[in-house]
């Protein structure tokens, strides 16, 4: 018989390296037509980081995403970057990119201010223009300012900057310190259907509510959550590397290492929690890794809700759940009106403390 259950899990996850310096540097050049080029050492691993960085630079300069060309991942041509790791790119590289864009923007403000008859601090960059705050009709196109900077003032608008999150080393005896600049939080709730005769579990639905600070690009955040959940489903139910007695892997192939296909995936509903982190670029934090952190727990809690067995070893394959169901049935007394079954978790579970 198929039984349904729901389960939830909440998590926290840090952004950036543990204590250790993990700087990123960036260079932004504004071209004479008001578009810009960003140089970054980060590597686009598929998550869309280059688009995010383009959006951050574009926001700072008041131009559009498509106006920013990103050059990346060349040790000759791009400034150093600690790497696309630890969900740090939006936060650390993003901050560096924003600061670099800001420096280029300030050069443009210096150029444009006398032309508009104001001080640089009175200017803002919006809609491809450098305009006087509160008097947008007094403006000049950012391209004109950049062209003027190069051709007349002799000051090409280039900004370079780097960023590293502030941390405090952990005490070796007590672990006390500030290991990370910021953290993100998330909750996932899973609905599953478990066949109580075979142990097979199907994940029907997952609701994922994730904090990422300001979502620079909500579509890409959704993509990360959907992809992370698929990894989480695999971790919870299917994936496992097996070894023989010599330490050799038994299943180093995709026939016998089972990972989620389109047929294994549930409906994933993504919810982005409203939040703003002042230490991040335009309030953004990050989202790459957190997306798969709570999934296995949510699924296993849902399995417990459905059929009353507690999975303590992953993956929760049908065989494992079947064995747990068998054990549970054997424990259950056959007559009515006798003691309830033992609680999960171990002999001291629920015992009063002394």
């Amino acid at each position, binding site marked *: 018989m198929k039984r349904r259950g729901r389960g939830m899990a909440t998590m926290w996850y840090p952004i950036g390296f543990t204590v250790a310096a993990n700087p990123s540097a960036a260079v932004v050049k504004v071209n004479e037509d008001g578009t810009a080029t960003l140089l970054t050492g980060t590597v686009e691993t*598929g998550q869309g980081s280059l688009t995010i960085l383009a959006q951050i630079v574009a926001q700072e300069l008041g131009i559009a995403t498509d106006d920013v060309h990103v050059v990346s991942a060349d040790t000759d041509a791009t400034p150093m970057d600690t790497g696309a790791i630890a969900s740090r790119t939006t936060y650390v590289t993003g901050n560096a990119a924003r600061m670099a864009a800001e420096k280029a923007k300030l050069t443009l403000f210096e150029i444009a201010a006398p032309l508009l008859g104001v001080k640089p601090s009175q200017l803002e960059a919006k809609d491809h223009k450098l305009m006087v705050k509160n008097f947008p009709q007094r403006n000049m196109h950012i391209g004109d300012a950049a062209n003027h900077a190069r051709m007349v003032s002799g000051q090409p608008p280039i900004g370079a900057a780097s960023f590293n999150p502030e941390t405090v080393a952990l005490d070796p005896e007590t672990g006390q310190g500030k290991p990370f600049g910021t953290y993100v939080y998330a909750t996932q709730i899973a609905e599953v259907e478990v066949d109580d005769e075979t142990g097979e579990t199907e994940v029907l639905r997952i609701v994922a509510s994730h904090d990422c600070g300001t979502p620079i690009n909500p579509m*890409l955040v959704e*993509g990360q959550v959907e992809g992370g959940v698929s990894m989480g489903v695999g971790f919870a139910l299917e994936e496992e590397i097996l070894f023989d007695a010599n330490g050799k892997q038994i299943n180093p*192939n995709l026939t016998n290492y089972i990972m989620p*296909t389109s047929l294994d995936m549930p409906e994933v509903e993504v919810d982005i929690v409203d939040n703003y982190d002042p230490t991040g670029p335009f309030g953004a934090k990050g989202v790459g890794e957190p997306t798969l952190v709570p999934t296995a727990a949510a699924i296993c809690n849902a399995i417990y809700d459905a059929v009353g067995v507690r999975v303590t070893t992953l993956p929760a394959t049908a065989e494992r759940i079947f064995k747990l169901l068998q054990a549970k049935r054997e424990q259950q007394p056959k007559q009515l009106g006798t003691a309830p079954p033992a609680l999960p978790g171990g002999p001291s579970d629920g015992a009063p403390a002394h």
Partner: protein
Amino acid sequence: MVTVTLKVNGKTRSATVPPETTLLRMLRDQFDLTGAKLGCDVGDCGACTVIVDGQPVNSCLMLAGQSEGCEVLTIEGLADIDHMHPLQKLFEHFGSLQCGFCGPGVIMSAKALLDANSNPCTQEIRDALGGNLCRCTGYSKMIEAIKGAACIMRGEELPAVK
């Protein structure tokens, strides 16, 4: 060595290759059509999916010699000088691809589906993609894009995006 002549993306192509060469390797190494990818080389991941005589095929499981006289369609043959294929357009619009490595294979599987079924439901789309592994996206936005492409190909308006 074996000489193979076939139609690839509408053009007659020919190559002389060792007999154990797969269709995948011939496409990539001889014809420089690197869209079909080598993800596992044993037919598990679907990154090498191309359409042979109308059927989606793992080209790593087909010998080059077996494709003699066939009509093969690869990802490079979908767009033309004027338009991207609706699948390609909507995959871009919905952000369906992240690292992109599985993309050509997925799109070819989707094309084969839409050629046979102009109004597939979600489950039918999941079935059609069942042989294409993706580690980045969780498949959600691919399904959305394929539904949208089916709409456009039926000549209908695209329903409002969420």
